[in-house]
């Protein structure tokens, strides 16, 4: 999703200089903070952003319910983090590239993936991570932090090809900052000064490990100093601030001014309202009321309040959005559930040309399927 308006990059950059307190535009009630100015987004764009956040929240509820019914496998919820996902997505132009993790469902959607495609890997579909040609999204990354060097490499490649207008935006969590690949990736980013933006979705937890135990560093943004690049902290529950900061970072990646360096590390301070995944029970390791303070700054509520106060949204439009969201999700679920995987396809796309041995194995399996029937393969092993 791209918006065409220019943002005042220098302004956002100025905001960005603040190091400790996260940058914020809206207060917890959705009022614009004194001295802050809102990004240059049209009413329509703001409503659309709101709708996508609402969609993300509802998608989460539906997905959790589908998992409980055994209709999808383990799901990583995003409630509390949709604001940052959607806002960073809105900051992207269509030609920019997105490197998501297993949690960035909404970011993928906003950058062009269909809702249905989000559900397919969760149903274990063989082509669950297939990406349409015209969508600049990478298949989601599960091995933590491995996407960083790859995102750097792609941005570097764009630079070598004179394609710096295709910036790369790479998501990861607070836990990811501990991995060697975080370090190696950002260090390369600094050395090769690549057009990339690194968004650390600091949701305070890496499964059961709290942010304070992940590193003794005071902020995650300050880790940027080790790589000679800029680090920014933003309130990830404030979609407008997150949008603004990301937008500025992307602009800088594409056209740094004198003395600026292309890459930016954004620490988007958030909170994971729910479980790590549907297989996780957070009550084992954290207090139930820990989230209360964060929920008071809820991105959906906050943006809704702002839009209401600006006259951009009202009950009627909000109602329409709620309905539209429900329909979209219903349709996506129906489509995803009707998709089948052909066992034969497990041999596809291992190499461009299948080696003889793989062709033989394929024939071997097909002969057995023929002989015994597919049901024989799903007999319970345990």
């Amino acid at each position, binding site marked *: 999703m791209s918006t065409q308006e220019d943002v005042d990059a220098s302004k956002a950059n100025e905001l960005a200089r603040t190091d400790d307190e996260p940058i914020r535009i809206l207060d917890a009630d959705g009022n614009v903070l004194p001295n802050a100015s809102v990004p240059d987004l049209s009413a329509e764009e703001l409503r659309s952003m709101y709708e996508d956040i609402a969609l993300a929240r509802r998608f989460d509820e539906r997905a959790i319910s589908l998992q409980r019914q055994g209709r999808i496998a383990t799901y990583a919820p995003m409630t509390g983090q949709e604001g940052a996902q959607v806002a960073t997505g809105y900051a992207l132009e269509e030609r920019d590239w997105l490197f998501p993790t297993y949690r960035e469902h909404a970011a993928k959607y906003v950058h062009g993936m269909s809702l249905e495609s989000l559900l397919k890997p969760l149903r274990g579909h063989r082509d669950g991570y297939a990406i349409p040609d015209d969508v600049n999204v990478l298949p989601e990354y599960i091995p*933590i932090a491995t996407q960083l060097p790859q995102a750097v490499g792609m941005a570097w490649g764009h630079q070598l090809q004179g394609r710096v207008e295709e910036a790369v935006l790479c998501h990861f969590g607070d836990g990811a900052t501990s991995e*060697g690949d975080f370090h190696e990736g950002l260090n390369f980013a600094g050395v090769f000064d690549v057009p990339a933006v690194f968004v650390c979705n600091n949701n305070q937890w890496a499964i059961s490990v709290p942010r304070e135990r992940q590193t003794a560093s005071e902020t995650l943004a300050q880790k940027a100093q080790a790589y000679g690049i800029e680090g920014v902290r933003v309130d990830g529950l404030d979609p407008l601030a997150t949008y603004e900061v990301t937008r500025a970072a992307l602009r800088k990646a594409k056209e740094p001014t004198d003395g600026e360096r292309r890459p930016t590390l954004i620490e988007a301070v958030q909170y994971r309202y729910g479980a790590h995944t549907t297989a996780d029970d957070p009550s084992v390791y954290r207090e139930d009321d820990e989230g209360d303070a964060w929920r008071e700054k809820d991105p959906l509520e906050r943006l809704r309040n702002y839009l209401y106060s600006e006259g951009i949204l009202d009950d009627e439009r909000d109602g329409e959005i709620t309905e539209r969201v429900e329909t979209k999700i219903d349709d996506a679920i129906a489509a995803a559930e009707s998709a089948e995987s052909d066992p034969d396809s*497990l041999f596809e796309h291992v190499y461009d040309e299948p080696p003889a041995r793989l062709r033989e*194995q394929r024939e071997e399996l097909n002969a057995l399927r023929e002989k015994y029937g597919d049901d024989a393969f799903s007999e319970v092993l345990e």
Partner: protein
Amino acid sequence: MSSASSAESDEDGSGQSTESTGSGESTESGDERLTLVEAVCDGLYTEMSADDRVVVLGEDVGKNGGVFRATEGLYEAFGDDRVVDTPLAESGIVGTGIGLALSGMRPVAEIQFMGFSYPAFDQLVSHAARFRSRSHGAYTVPMVVRMPYGGGIRAPEHHSESKEAFFAHEPGLKVVAPSTPSDAKGLLTAAIRDPDPVVFLEPKLIYRAFREAVPTGSYEVPLSDAAIRREGSDVTVYAWGAMTRPALIAADNVADEYGVDVELVDLRTLSPLDVETIVDSFEKTGRAVIVHEGPKTGGLGAEVAATIQERAVLYQEAPIKRVTGFDAPVPLHSLEDFYLPQAVRIQDGILETVAF
């Protein structure tokens, strides 16, 4: 050396306790009916109680008790000095584990899934495996690195790896893969006490598949012996970990339906291999089917096959068959049943081998 023991057990945990299948001996009497993952936890608890050099470290092993609950209750019992939630960094976990071992501790590191062990590969193969040799015995690394492995639980990508062959190729490492609760505890105990680094692979598919009588207290199942899970004379099936179960089903099927008498050898310790038991069984049956989840090419099955024909070619009556994962990545879960060696494939392999 190997001991015949029944792998039969009480699937739903409701029935009578059968005899213990562990070949080790318990230092205390009594036993409990445990799942494999509970037996792992019990093994950790027992060794931590007996030896305060034993520390457990890894991602989410502490307060959370492990993502599979394999370390449940340890944090409460032994405190956060001995059950340590680490930052999210596998090379850091194994690397500091090595350092802990060098300092005189007995670290048991957990890697959350085998698919996430690769960032620690260098620390494992270049360091843990070689410290004793390179320092000519001056430094040693008595460390266990536990990792759930294998497919079949409808897990996301990268969560179904079975790459035991990577570790078995590195001299200096030992590699273990239990298939029963009592073995899990006894082998884990032996691994923790072993003066060398052990990669301890836990078949997560059968973490909770069945309960079995597991001796309370402390006992070892030695890291040197394969187990014969079923005696037979027509063909030997070699398997380990979660694959011993479909192998047993297939063996029972071919016995019932075709009167084929299968001997099932559960390797248990994958490195060093119990070559004697492997070869002895083959000399008896003259036919072999090797089963594993990992890709066929370069899998441990190749080593077993090569070893057999090196030593017992004159007994050989048929090609040694490998029923394994295919030479493709494990697909997303809708197709994993077709990727993994199921009983049907094993059975077909057995029949093909005896018919040769």
